[in-house]
């Protein structure tokens, strides 16, 4: 299988481990990724004009005829929303009038969806089952919104994936509660409060690791975790991995191939426990 890959801006800095682990996992699953030609920012949550946001996404989508895959839920949501908007004939004509290449329709997929499909077809790839690992599946908002693919209220796709990896999904009440990421610069306190609630809930649920599908969720829960511990006076100490990093471990990829040294809360003690368990069996 060959897919067009949209890395998104975050892949080049604070989300480098998302990009590295995505490429490594797809390569292990023998799915070829062709990076989108000269891609631009999707506008994230900061472009308020719907037509401009649609146009920015359309420029990306017009670069390829392949299905487009991304690991970032913000990019994913924006591309999907634009593709829906562009079903409208009038909107499509307006957008095409300013694009260099004509937009003719696109299929957008989240990396999670492609990985799940590949693993369902061939579970033999899982060389290191994550038996007994307690995982909190954190969805955040934009993987499932706008609606159409996963339930926007109670998605279960990550629990399904966790099951395939033979790990255990903990009961995590705040799995779709917003992390506050989009407002962390101008409204620091509001964002901190939201992220801390999620971390505390995952800890109470007994999670050994939290998985994310969005670089902004990852930033709020991982990069900011130590400063949230200081701010709220509570030790959390839970590693937070991109879903691609967790899948990568089960596929037998090494920590360096998955960018594990870039996570703020080191997942290495957890990974060593997995390796030890494997050695015992």
């Amino acid at each position, binding site marked *: 299988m060959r897919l067009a890959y949209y890395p998104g801006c975050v892949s*080049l800095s604070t989300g480098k481990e998302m990009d590295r682990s995505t490429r490594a996992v797809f390569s292990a699953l023998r799915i070829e990724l062709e990076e989108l030609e000269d891609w631009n920012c999707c506008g994230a949550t900061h472009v308020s004009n719907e037509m401009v946001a649609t146009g920015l996404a359309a420029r990306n989508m017009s670069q390829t005829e392949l299905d487009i895959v991304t690991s970032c839920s913000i990019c994913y949501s924006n591309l999907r929303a634009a593709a829906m908007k562009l079903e409208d004939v009038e909107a499509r004509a307006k957008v095409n009038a300013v694009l260099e290449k004509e937009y003719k329709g696109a299929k957008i997929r989240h990396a999670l969806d492609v990985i799940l499909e590949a693993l369902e077809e061939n579970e033999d790839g899982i060389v290191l089952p994550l038996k007994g690992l307690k995982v909190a599946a954190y969805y955040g908002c934009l993987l499932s919104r706008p609606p159409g693919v996963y339930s926007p209220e109670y998605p279960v796709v990550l629990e399904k994936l966790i099951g395939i990896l033979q790990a255990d999904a903990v009961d995590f009440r705040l799995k779709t509660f917003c992390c506050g990421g989009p407002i962390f610069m101008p409204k620091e306190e509001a964002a901190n409060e939201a992220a801390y609630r999620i971390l505390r809930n995952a800890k109470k649920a007994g999670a050994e690791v939290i998985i994310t599908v969005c670089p902004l969720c990852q930033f709020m829960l991982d990069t900011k975790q130590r400063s949230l511990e200081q701010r709220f006076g509570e030790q959390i100490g839970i590693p937070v991995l991109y879903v691609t990093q967790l899948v990568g471990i089960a596929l037998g990829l090494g920590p360096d191939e998955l960018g594990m040294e870039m996570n703020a809360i080191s997942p290495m003690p957890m990974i060593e426990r997995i390796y030890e368990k494997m050695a015992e069996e």
Partner: protein
Amino acid sequence: MVKDEGFKIEVLRLAGDEVRTCIQCGTCSASCPTAHLMNPSIRRLVKLCLEGRKEEALHNETLWLCTSCLLCTVRCPRGIRPKMVVSALKELADREKIDSPGRSYDHLFIKQIADYGRISELPLIGEFLLLYPQGSIQSMKVGLELLPRGKITLEREHIRGRDEVRRIMEELGR
């Protein structure tokens, strides 16, 4: 009586004419993760738009507390997109250069896309902190986490299709 009909019409043009059908049920406010910090609430904000109360609708921090989670939009029983009402107001606030950290952040973000086609996080945060230095402590803490892990990139990203991107922003933004 509608105070500023022109304002109301512009909000409806940007956010969708169905906003007129709002029944003020409050499902949006009840679903909003930052509702407890908002004044006016998202429900009230929709009402202010429909009444043409431009000043109150644009000069508040509610707009900048929206995290774009889309839950209001998923749940609205009338099929309205309250998040798009917030977006419309953010755009009008930007046109009027309203003084707010949230407005400035979005403005700098959009300007980077228009100038370079991609976001480079370090210059974006830097430019924002020049305007609002109170975020510096948070940013330094974050920087200390990112720097040793090689996640701060100094060079600025730019794409070849900048003219096309600028055209998208100018012509579709009208």
